[in-house]
């Protein structure tokens, strides 16, 4: 009774502790909902658009500094670069000629083989806006989003190999989960002998590792691992990693194989988001599967 007639001066709403309980349980609920069902994406998009001006403001000084430093590149540096680029162009031209011939040949061969992989699709060039601030995740944010028809699941490469995969698309930006992200798997193949394996990321600072490879698996140091293309996500043949260490411990069923990424995963400003149309046959429904077997590997 007393509390209802207290003067307005003392009214402070619910006590801090009950507010704490309310908000803490609210965040717990959000946490569980977000982790389990991932249905909060629309809310994320709205707020991320509202945050975009702030992000732009925060990154503007850096990009201005980049532009200014670009502007004051010295004459000799430019000349040197020009020279180098000319040389490289000549070299690349020669390679391109051979490449075109090979591509033609390849297309014919593939038509014969009737495979659906590696259609040589187009990509979107994206600039890295920033490394994600979050120390827990290995993620990059780039300046392409829904507006540029980027979709979650697309593969991102740099000149040296696979960088990662688009995992979340906002209207103006997109997030790349790097292959070094914990538990980010990439199906690969050893170039030397075609052995199939899966490379897992293992956190921001440790290298990649190949898991579930039997102790007697034929894999050595300096083996190059490329995407195998059998998952339907990564196109075949992109370099992923190089094996740096193989520990064969007789006590465990699997060999411990560490690798380092082929791409400069956290050094580039520009990356290519691959936009390949891959006609993957629908997965057969397990019990009443029709006898149509397509694309068995």
């Amino acid at each position, binding site marked *: 009774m007393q509390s209802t007639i207290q003067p307005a001066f003392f009214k402070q709403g619910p006590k*801090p502790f009950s507010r704490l309980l*309310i908000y803490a349980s*609210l965040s717990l609920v959000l946490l569980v909902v977000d982790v389990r069902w991932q249905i909060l994406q629309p809310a994320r998009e709205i707020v991320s658009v509202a945050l975009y001006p702030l*992000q732009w403001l925060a990154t503007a000084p850096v990009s201005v500094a980049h532009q200014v430093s670009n502007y004051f590149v010295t004459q000799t540096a430019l000349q040197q670069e020009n020279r180098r680029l000319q040389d490289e162009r000549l070299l690349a031209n020669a390679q391109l000629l051979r490449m075109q011939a090979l591509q033609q040949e390849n297309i014919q061969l593939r038509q014969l083989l009737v495979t659906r992989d590696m259609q040589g699709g187009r990509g979107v060039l994206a600039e890295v*806006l920033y490394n994600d601030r979050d120390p827990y995740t290995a993620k990059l944010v780039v300046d392409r989003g829904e507006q540029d028809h980027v979709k979650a699941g697309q593969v991102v490469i740099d000149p040296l190999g696979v960088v990662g995969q688009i995992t979340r698309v906002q209207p103006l930006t997109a997030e790349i989960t790097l292959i070094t992200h914990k538990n980010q798997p990439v199906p690969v193949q050893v170039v030397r002998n075609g052995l199939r394996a899966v490379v897992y990321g293992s956190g921001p600072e440790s290298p990649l590792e190949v898991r579930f490879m039997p102790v007697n698996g034929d894999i050595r140091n300096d083996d190059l691992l490329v995407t195998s293309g059998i998952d339907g996500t990564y196109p075949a043949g992109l370099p992923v990693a190089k094996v740096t260490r193989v520990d064969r411990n007789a006590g465990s069923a699997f060999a411990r194989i560490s690798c380092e990424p082929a791409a400069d995963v956290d050094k580039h400003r520009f990356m290519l988001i691959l936009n390949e149309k891959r006609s993957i046959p629908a997965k057969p429904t397990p019990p009443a599967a029709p006898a149509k077997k397509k694309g068995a590997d």
Partner: protein
Amino acid sequence: MPVSRQLLKPVSLGFILFTIVVALTTALIPWGPTVRAILPDGVALVLFYWCMYQSRRVGMGWAFWLGIVLDIADGNVFGQHGIAYCLTAWFVLARHRQLGMFPLWQQALYIGPLLFASQLIMLVVRMATGSAFPGWFIFIGALTGAVFWPLLSQLLQMQQRTEKRAEIQS
């Protein structure tokens, strides 16, 4: 010098919002990993400040919503910052009268562990949702945050100080 001895001007809501927007913007600057580890959590510091001095206005609700905004900006799981900020802001709110009387270095001794706790809560949340342990460096920010606290308090109070203290006494 205990802060409460001065008579401070009232704060406008606009100024509170302005400081929070500035803190959010600095939080969004893409620092390199080393700078990011050393820099304190500016949003948390500003939030603690306003919880301490403007507890009638800024409280749990602000902590929660700021947490949500940061989670979206970082692309984290929802509620990671929310839980951390709510719990730590409560510790400030529950003791705000006492804390307001402390000298700044004693406040810093209270704020530092709170920043540490907030990182610890986030660590627990992330480990529970399956992230890798990022390394002990994430706790350095709590230490520098405690060092930054007196500076930040002075900076934010500058706007509230009355210019002519002699007039009040006469």
